[in-house]
């Protein structure tokens, strides 16, 4: 039982850690949910396959396929029939095989099988690719120690306990225990990009005891026993012991090399396998992205169900009618000896024939992946649509939930300012300060700027008082020295590359850390080498200006950063024996642990912290403590004890750290600028004009969050801000008393009161005439109570009234809760965008999840539906692709609805006049090919190519997007209008054609029969339906003409051939009979025009008196040439290869002119000729000349 307890605590701890996760640090984040751990522990015998046999560890082969040979068919079919449409067709097909059906079962079974077959083949193909991928992985080879020799075996043969050798840049085949490596001090470097996307190297260190097993001979003697936890999915924890020579050595994540990582900067290492195959942590983390279906698709299901109900009603009418009609008096029906009413079920075969195959096809097109506007050049990342069936959802997003760091901001940290011993240094002005000043109408003068201001990545600081040894003349030179040393020593950064200040690069877990080390370097404290026990720093100006001396510090203990501690400490020993603890951490944490009697400094520094905070800077406090050897020694014992404990090691370590991290002396604080992503403020403004509300959900402090919100134009001073914070005096007072129940009660009361008050106020504002925009800022602690079911409604009402909402200090779980509150509570379409692992839950909770790709951290992308490289690409993703997808899908769906309803209704009218017998009006083949051939292609073309306004205009008029939010194109009213015209048209098709054809049909007075008339009607339906499609197109490309023409041609070719070969049935020679009469041509001209007349009048009136916004935009820009604007051209043009640029430039030429360019291709400078006609100066391009040269050559060859 104990194991279960532990795991549940682990889960809670994990959540807590996530809650205040500092940006950029993903070290404690978990991918999936924490799985309950199997109780107990496992024992692994290293290098001893026989001993491991009884336990039956799984092999190292993996399988990520969805199906296998036997499960494919049942499982795949089950997946398919979860769709309403497919299930519907299955029912129909089964019914059609019964003898009472009026149609041949083939006509229903064939299309269904076709749809199923295509879907299954697609599934099978995707699964096959997965299988092949698995095979490649399983068959990759690895060196295993066998009989003192290295044998190369495939990964899948690897077993628990084997000793393997991994070479540089090699991937770890399983979870390994690191034994020894070529680096002298048992260290190796690994890259974990495949796990968490972080590209910075991590250090792993073998136990000292195993360092020596670095030759095959020695390693083969290695006999150890590993006792460790059961396999689990926590990537960053591991507890276990290595028992070797009867000694028990504690193991930590530091010795574990996870599958999927790769070895760097180390020639090779030896390691023993501890978890294999599906028990490896990375495999245990593999999770399926929850399959999302778009709201439109769900609404479509409803529509299908409604149609189903409608058809059922028709069937019922038919059945009842049939029962009433059937009578022995109709002797010619041959009812003798039969009971009447045998055709009750016959009507079930009216089907709407919604073949969603086409929609699926449209959805899987890859416009998003190929859009140049969303390609980020710097990071070489194109956009990626990971789930293609959500495209249309992008056109209806109303709420965006955005992470801050890495999404709105660059996660590029620059050391910007600092405060040492109560003095502020640093002259820069942040964007935010500038923005605030501009808003307040103050003009800021750029501060002192020395000519040689140091600026490198991570360091954007200039102050002569500190630079180049200037600090020696400051009031507190000693404190300055401690400040710099603290920066240079207290960190977990790895130096890489040449040991010179210019060339060195630092590998750090977070960009803040490396920014601090870079700062130290620039101040003259150059950290250049790290060994597991030592840190080497080149210190300048310490003795006197200009001197440089190498100093080494022995690192005794590292008390690592985690988010509960919010601080990091290092105990180091100077060469002269001085023992110092350097500590850096969040202000409140450090302040709690400061020694008494620094009140002045504390007060001044506090002011500085607030100053930095309000400038949007991220702050850290630095402090140190001198230790006496006795204190240290006694503490170190406890530390070692804690470090080797098997249970709750982390907690014990935290407790031990608490003992020594006290009585600190404050040095000062640093301020780091978190740069905004490119184009973020503009993008946010555009999106808010589009009617999208943006909420920022961040783990940051309230001040930082508000500042970023200001910088992004999310909040401004004209807005009425509601701030619900837990940092009030009342709450603080209660918190000081420490009674948890009381705290909870008080905060809840407070939050309730605040929410009520704000809501009232907000509603008052709404009713007033000149209402200001509203903004809500709430912190995580209050949010916890506000999300309580009793208050949730109030919170929702309040937040929906606000234009922007900022939630700060929220945990990943709360992010997801807020998202699903809006998604479920307000039934609005939501989109979450984030870059880090802490956004995964939010991304999965929202309707649409967007991950920021191209930076560190792949987890968000793995969980997302769409991945883009930059926040600003959201405008393209939503306003262009989303809008188009939505409009297209609406058109496709309503058109499907229309054409099937029209078709079915003509059939229905017919049954009224056949004694409800269920006789088909049309031939079975007409019926089944109607959707598959005669009307299929044009609608696909619309789904692919239709666009109302160009991409540039979509972005220029973001307000157009609101039509999607209002769902203006797929309301029940829209469907009703289509349905109305369907009824109208079907009446015309049926009644006009039948009643006009009941006289002699040519000058020889011959009469038509049923099949002649139905073929006539069907021809009219096909023609009308195809032309109706052209009427709803906003842009008609040549593909439209081809597809519509092709469909009509297909019908006529089909009927011409069918009428000859179909000798068994009634359609023999029907079309030739028809075409020999004038009636055919007269009707063919009249009926489609007559049928479309209603739609045309409706469209004309709608456009004239109730225009949609996009229609007005079309009118405004009706004279502009098709294609991109000139600016857009420049923007894209830069990224084109010459060949593409050529095709692009040709595409840009005005259409009418380009028709005549046959001769001009050989005349020099044709491009500038057209350009000059347009009034644009176009310089000759190299490729142009080259192309002309090549043209001439080919001409000569001829």
């Amino acid at each position, binding site marked *: 039982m104990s194991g279960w307890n532990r795991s549940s605590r682990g889960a809670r701890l994990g959540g807590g850690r996530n809650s205040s996760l500092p940006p950029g640090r993903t070290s404690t984040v978990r991918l999936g949910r924490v799985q309950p751990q199997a109780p107990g522990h496992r024992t692994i015998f290293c290098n001893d396959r026989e001993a491991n046999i009884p336990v039956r560890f799984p092999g190292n082969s993996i399988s990520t396929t969805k199906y296998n040979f036997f499960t494919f068919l049942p499982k795949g079919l089950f997946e398919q029939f979860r769709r309403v449409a497919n299930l519907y067709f299955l029912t129909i097909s089964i019914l059609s095989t019964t003898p009472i059906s009026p149609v041949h079962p083939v006509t229903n079974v064939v299309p269904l099988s076709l749809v199923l077959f295509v879907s299954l083949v697609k599934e099978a193909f995707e699964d096959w690719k997965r299988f092949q991928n698995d095979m490649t992985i399983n068959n990759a080879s690895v060196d295993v120690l066998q009989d003192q020799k290295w044998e190369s075996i495939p990964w899948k043969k690897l077993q628990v306990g084997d000793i393997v050798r991994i070479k540089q840049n090699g991937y770890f085949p399983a979870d390994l225990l690191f034994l020894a490596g070529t680096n002298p001090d048992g260290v190796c470097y690994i890259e974990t990009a495949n796990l968490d996307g972080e590209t910075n190297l991590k250090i792993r260190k073998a136990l000292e005891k195993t360092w020596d097993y670095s030759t095959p001979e020695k390693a083969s003697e290695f006999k150890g026993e590993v006792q460790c936890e059961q396999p689990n999915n926590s990537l960053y924890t591991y507890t276990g012991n290595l028992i070797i020579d009867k000694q028990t050595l504690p193991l930590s994540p530091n010795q574990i090399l996870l599958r999927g990582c790769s070895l760097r900067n180390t020639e090779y290492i030896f390691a023993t396998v501890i978890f294999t195959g599906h028990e490896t942590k990375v495999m245990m983390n593999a999770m399926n992205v929850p399959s999302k279906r778009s709201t439109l698709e769900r609404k479509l299901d409803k529509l299908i169900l409604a149609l189903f109900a409608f058809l059922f009603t028709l069937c019922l009418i038919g059945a009842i009618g049939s029962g009433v009609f059937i009578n022995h008096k109709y002797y010619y029906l041959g009812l003798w000896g039969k009971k009447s009413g045998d055709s009750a079920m016959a009507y079930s075969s009216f089907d709407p024939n919604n073949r969603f195959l086409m929609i699926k096809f449209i959805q899987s097109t890859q416009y998003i992946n*190929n859009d140049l506007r969303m390609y980020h050049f710097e990071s070489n990342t194109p956009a990626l649509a990971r789930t293609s069936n959500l495209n249309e959802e992008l056109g209806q997003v109303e709420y965006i939930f955005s992470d801050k760091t890495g999404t709105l901001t660059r996660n590029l940290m620059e050391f910007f300012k600092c405060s040492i011993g109560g003095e502020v240094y640093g002259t820069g002005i942040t964007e935010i300060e500038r923005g605030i000043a501009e808003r307040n109408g103050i003009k800021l003068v750029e501060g002192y700027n020395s000519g040689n201001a140091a600026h490198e990545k991570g360091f954007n600081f200039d102050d002569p008082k500190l630079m180049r040894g200037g600090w020696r003349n400051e009031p507190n030179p000693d404190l300055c020295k401690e400040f710099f040393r603290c920066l240079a020593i207290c960190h977990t950064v790895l130096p890489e590359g040449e040991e010179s200040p210019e060339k060195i690069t630092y590998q750090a877990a977070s960009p803040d850390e490396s920014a601090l080390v870079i700062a130290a370097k620039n101040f003259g404290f150059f950290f250049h080498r790290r060994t597991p026990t030592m840190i080497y720093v080149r210190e300048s100006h310490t003795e006197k200006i200009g001197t440089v001396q190498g100093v080494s510090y022995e690192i005794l203990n590292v008390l690592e950063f985690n988010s509960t501690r919010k601080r990091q400490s290092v105990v180091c020993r100077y060469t002269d024996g001085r023992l110092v603890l350097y500590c850096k951490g969040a202000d409140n944490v450090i302040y709690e642990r400061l020694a008494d009697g620094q009140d002045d400094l504390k007060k001044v520094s506090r002011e500085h912290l607030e100053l930095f905070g309000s400038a949007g800077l991220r702050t850290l406090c630095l402090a140190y403590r001198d230790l006496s050897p006795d204190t240290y020694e006694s503490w170190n014992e406890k530390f070692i004890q804690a470090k080797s404990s098997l249970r709750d090691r982390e907690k014990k370590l935290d407790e031990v750290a608490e003992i020594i991290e006290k009585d600190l002396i404050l040095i000062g604080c640093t301020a780091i600028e978190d740069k905004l992503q490119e184009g973020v403020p503009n993008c946010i403004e555009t999106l808010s004009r589009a009617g999208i509300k943006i909420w920022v959900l961040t783990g940051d402090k309230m001040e930082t969050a508000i500042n970023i919100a200001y910088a992004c134009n999310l909040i401004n001073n004209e807005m009425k801000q509601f701030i619900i914070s837990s940092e009030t005096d009342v709450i603080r007072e209660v918190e000081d008393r420490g009674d948890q129940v009381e705290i909870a009660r008080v905060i809840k009361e407070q939050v309730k009161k605040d929410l009520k008050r704000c809501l009232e106020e907000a509603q008052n504002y709404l009713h007033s005439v000149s209402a200001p925009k509203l903004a809500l800022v709430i912190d995580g602690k209050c949010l916890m109570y506000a999300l309580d079911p009793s208050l949730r409604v109030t919170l929702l009402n309040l937040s929906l009234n606000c234009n922007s909402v900022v939630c700060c200090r929220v945990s990943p779980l709360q992010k997801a809760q807020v998202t699903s509150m809006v998604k479920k509570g307000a039934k609005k379409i939501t989109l979450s965008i984030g870059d880090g692992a802490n956004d995964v839950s939010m991304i999965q909770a929202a309707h649409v999840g967007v991950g920021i790709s191209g930076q560190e951290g792949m987890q968000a992308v793995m969980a997302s539906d769409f991945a883009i490289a930059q926040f600003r690409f959201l405008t393209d993703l939503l306003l262009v692709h989303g809008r188009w997808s939505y409009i297209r899908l609406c058109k496709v769906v309503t058109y499907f609805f229309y054409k099937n309803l029209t078709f079915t209704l003509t059939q229905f009218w017919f049954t009224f006049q056949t004694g409800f017998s269920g006789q088909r009006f049309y031939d079975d083949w007409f019926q089944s090919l109607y959707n598959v051939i005669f009307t299929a292609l044009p609608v696909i073309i619309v789904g692919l190519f239709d666009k109302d306004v160009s991409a540039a205009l979509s972005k220029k008029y973001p307000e157009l997007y609101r039509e999607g939010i209002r769902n203006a194109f797929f309301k029940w009213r829209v469907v009703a209008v289509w349905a109305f015209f369907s009824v109208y048209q079907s009446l015309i098709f049926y009644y006009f054609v039948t009643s006009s054809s009941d006289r*002699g049909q040519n000058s020889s007075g011959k009469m038509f029969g049923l099949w002649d008339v139905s073929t006539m009607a069907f021809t009219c339906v096909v023609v009308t339906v195809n032309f109706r499609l052209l009427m709803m197109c906003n842009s008609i490309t040549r593909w439209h003409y081809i597809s519509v023409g092709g469909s009509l041609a297909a019908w006529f070719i089909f009927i011409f051939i069918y009428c000859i070969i179909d000798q068994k049935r009634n359609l023999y020679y029907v079309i030739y009979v028809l075409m020999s009469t004038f009636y055919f041509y*007269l009707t063919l001209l009249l009926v489609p025009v007559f049928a479309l007349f209603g739609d045309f009048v409706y469209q004309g009136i709608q456009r004239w008196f109730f225009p949609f916004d996009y229609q007005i935009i079309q009118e405004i820009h009706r004279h502009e040439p098709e294609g991109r604007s000139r600016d857009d051209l420049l923007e894209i043009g830069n*990224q084109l290869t010459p060949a593409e640029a050529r095709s692009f430039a040709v595409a840009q030429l005005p259409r009418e002119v380009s028709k005549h360019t046959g001769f001009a291709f050989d005349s020099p400078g044709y491009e500038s000729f057209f350009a000059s006609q347009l009034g644009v100066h176009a310089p000759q391009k190299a490729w142009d000349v080259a192309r002309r040269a090549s043209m001439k050559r080919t001409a000569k060859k001829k």
Partner: protein
Amino acid sequence: MDAKDGASDLTSSTKKKSRRPKYSQFTQQELPACKPILTPAWVILIFVAIGIVFLPIGFASLFASEHVVEIVNHYDRDCVPPNYVDNKLAYIQSSKTNKTCIRRVTIPKQMKSPVYIYYQLDHFYQNHRRYVKSRSDGQLRSKSNEKKTDTCAPERYTANGAIVPCGLVAWSLFNDTYKFSVNNKQLGVSKKDITWKSDPKKKFGSDVYPKNFQSGGLIGGAKLNSSIPLSEQEDLMVWMRTSTLPTFRKLYGKIEADLEADDIVTVTIENNYNTYIFGGNKKLVLSTASWIGGKNCLLGIAYLTVGGLCLFLAISFLLLYLFKPRPLGDTSYLSWNRSAPGGHIY
């Protein structure tokens, strides 16, 4: 989801290449397109164009239809002898009653040869599912398919073998006959060429002779001369081209002589066919034909209606355009400008 595993990335990570999408008009969604805008001018123009095209066609077809002379004589009720009026069924089902009936028809206008004779039935559901499928086209076409009668239930075979032609359609063949005379002079009724050419050529075999037809327990309608192949039984072919609606006309024959105005045509009807049981009507129709066929006002009227409506709408739109103009691309109509002062609210 693919395994986030290393080996597959081995190749892709070693050689870095640009992942920039390729430019093409298709992927960038910039295919050249024409963008029609349904401006009022276009609407009016299209209406006018339709009107101009449709009105003449309408007039032409109406004119043609008006020139057709059509006489309809409803005879089933009047042909019942007075003593059977209350029991029409007994009259029609009895083989002893005299079915001959004389009708006189006055020709209102001159009818040029050929004059087509039709019979018209009401409430006869030739399009009923049970009826339509009760036939065997294979059997009709070729002698070799004589046994293919499975679709013909319940008229498949008799004790003597398969029925040719089988099925309810053939079984219920219309069996009233008409004879015409003007001024006591017999008018010949030609039964040739009353079907569409494809029927005798391909659908009804010249080697198929009626067999066991109308020899079952129940007699449905006309009998066929078993010495004449089906390809020459034009009445059967006409009958077997089942009608669309329960009210239908079928071509009976033609009179190859002009009928002058005020001629009185005497029709001798053998009133055999039982429509009394289901309350149907029988009518005799004499009609000439024009290029659009028989008297068919519907087409002409529809053309005129649509054409007229289009012109009317064109004028209405023009008036609207003059009195309530909306400048193209008036931004005050944009939904986000509507609430602003000067915006249009409707």
